[in-house]
């Protein structure tokens, strides 16, 4: 898959929250990710397992109390050691993101058109009609055909799904090399979602960027991703081609996810017993062991690393090969 050198490589990423010098939480505990150029990588996993915060680390927008260690290489350049000034240049340009929460991405007191103009001015030096033309084009790309109304609107004047689309349009303004999408289609009806995913794939094809797609929708993963990484409690527990991982999941957690989907049949849904640990600091051994149908004694002592079960499919489970 990734014959060319990876565009993004995340190695042993750890993220800790501290409060007055004391470590209060470690939501990311050694994440490994790789995205090739022109590749679409899906990231799935239980709520709170560290997906958004990993995206923030890649972008360099972690909250103040958080500290990241490990390596994040983007286009061959280690990011974590770069000064903030240089990282800010990439943001919204070479790397851009569509945030999970549209509310936080916009300033409530500026019209949306002006907020988009600011991006083009800052990164491309474009203004006036040239800028307006690009903005209008991107807005109609995401299916917002009433471009005048949208550009003149304040964020609260649009519906949840419309705002999410404006955000996608804004992220694409500067034609990024890496586009991070955090739950980009959850607020959209499936026809619009499909249209947007198609648009992203089409632009990805034309412009050749890579995509990191965070989603809970396994159908979307299957439909759009080349590969997928499954996170659990701050670690990647399984990764491989999207087809293989969804059809023959090897990690008991992934198996549980695939089994919990509401299908056509009705009846009580199968959720995975138990809860994610509230705090990832004190975890011993495999974080999933307490909820796992296949756990053996060793699982409570050893936290397994990713190991190949085929040439492209890896799983972090000491019993992964046999399940």
């Amino acid at each position, binding site marked *: 898959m990734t014959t060319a050198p990876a565009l993004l490589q995340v190695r042993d990423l750890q993220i800790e*929250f501290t409060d007055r010098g004391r470590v209060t939480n470690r939501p990311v505990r050694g994440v490994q990710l790789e995205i090739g150029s022109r590749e679409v990588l899906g990231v799935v*996993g*239980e*709520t*709170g*397992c560290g997906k*958004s*915060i990993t995206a923030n680390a890649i972008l360099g927008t972690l*909250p103040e109390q958080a500290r990241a260690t490990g390596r994040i290489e983007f286009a061959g350049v280690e990011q974590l050691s770069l000064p903030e000034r240089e990282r800010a240049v990439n943001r919204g340009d070479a790397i851009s993101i569509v945030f*999970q*929460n549209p*509310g*936080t991405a916009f300033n409530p007191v500026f019209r949306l058109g002006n907020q988009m103009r600011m991006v083009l001015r800052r990164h491309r030096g474009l203004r006036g009609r040239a800028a307006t033309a690009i903005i209008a084009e991107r807005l109609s790309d995401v299916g917002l055909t009433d471009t005048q*109304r949208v550009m*003149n609107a304040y964020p609260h*004047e649009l*519906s*949840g*799904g*419309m705002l*999410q689309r404006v955000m996608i349009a804004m992220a694409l303004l500067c034609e990024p090399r890496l586009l991070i999408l955090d*739950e980009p289609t*959850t*607020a*959209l*009806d*499936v*026809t*619009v*979602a*499909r249209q947007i995913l*198609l648009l992203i*794939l089409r632009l990805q*094809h034309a412009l050749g960027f890579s995509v990191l797609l965070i989603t*809970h*929708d*396994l*159908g*979307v*993963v*299957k*439909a*759009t991703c080349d590969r997928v990484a499954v996170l659990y409690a701050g670690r990647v527990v399984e990764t491989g081609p999207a087809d293989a991982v*969804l059809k023959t999941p090897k990690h008991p957690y992934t198996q*549980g*996810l695939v089994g*919990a*989907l*509401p*299908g*056509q049949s*009705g009846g*009580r*849904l*199968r*959720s995975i017993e138990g*809860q994610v*640990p*509230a*705090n990832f600091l004190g975890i011993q051994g495999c974080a999933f062991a307490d909820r796992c149908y296949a756990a053996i004694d060793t699982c409570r002592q050893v936290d397994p690393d990713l190991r190949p079960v085929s040439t492209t499919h890896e799983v972090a489970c000491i019993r992964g090969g046999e399940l």
Partner: protein
Amino acid sequence: MSALVSTSSLVHEFTSHRSSHVALDHVTVEIEKGTSLGVVGESGSGKTTLVRCILGLLRPTGGSVRFDGAEVARMSTKELRAMRRRVGMVFQNPVMALDPRMTVEESIAEPLRVHTRLRGADLQRAIGEALDAVALPQAHRTRLPHQLSGGQCQRVGIARALATHPELVILDEPTSALDVSVQAQILNLLTDLRVERDLTFVMISHSLDVVRYLSDDVVVMLQGRIVEEGTAAEVLAAPQHEYTQNLVAACPTVESDSLRFALQSREETSK
């Protein structure tokens, strides 16, 4: 049976000095006690506006909303408060719906203090139960919204809406930020509550699977109008309106290879 909520020819028009926009265009719905209504439809079609009108948060431009027989627009502040006590609302945007300065515990306690007589240890127990119901660890009680993930915030919103034991629960995209396992837990919880408490639900969702699972009836909205309605089973199995047909056809799933719109879309992209 009697309708708990009904709207008749409801119209809502947003006007500003520059423009106006008709968000609801003669919408008539009836929600019987103990039933569950699914609302699906295009983004921007007026779904959130509809529930805001039902709650009396927006004043209709035309038509009317009745709650348990009484017209919402004519209610006094006191009557409105009495009505809202009987309704639990889960807002679409989980992060914005929570007060950023309130801890999880305070967020859930607030409606309990306003609408119930629970205090002290009883209040604490009710908060504990509400957290358990949505599978949030008790350890998160003292966290602020910015210290939680998107899905965790969404669960706080659900816990808050259910804690006061409302008769009507309105959920605007309640599971959109949840992974499928937690979603399954929440859907099971809602199903149990229906049986135990004879709850009435209005559920807006873009996930047809979720609507099929939880709703008796469904209305499909497009550009401020209801374009199709009926039982969820019928409408989703044999949609009549073109928009609903597209909706059902566009739904990606992991199961069938035939719906692999990956391949399809790859082909479409390379055209």
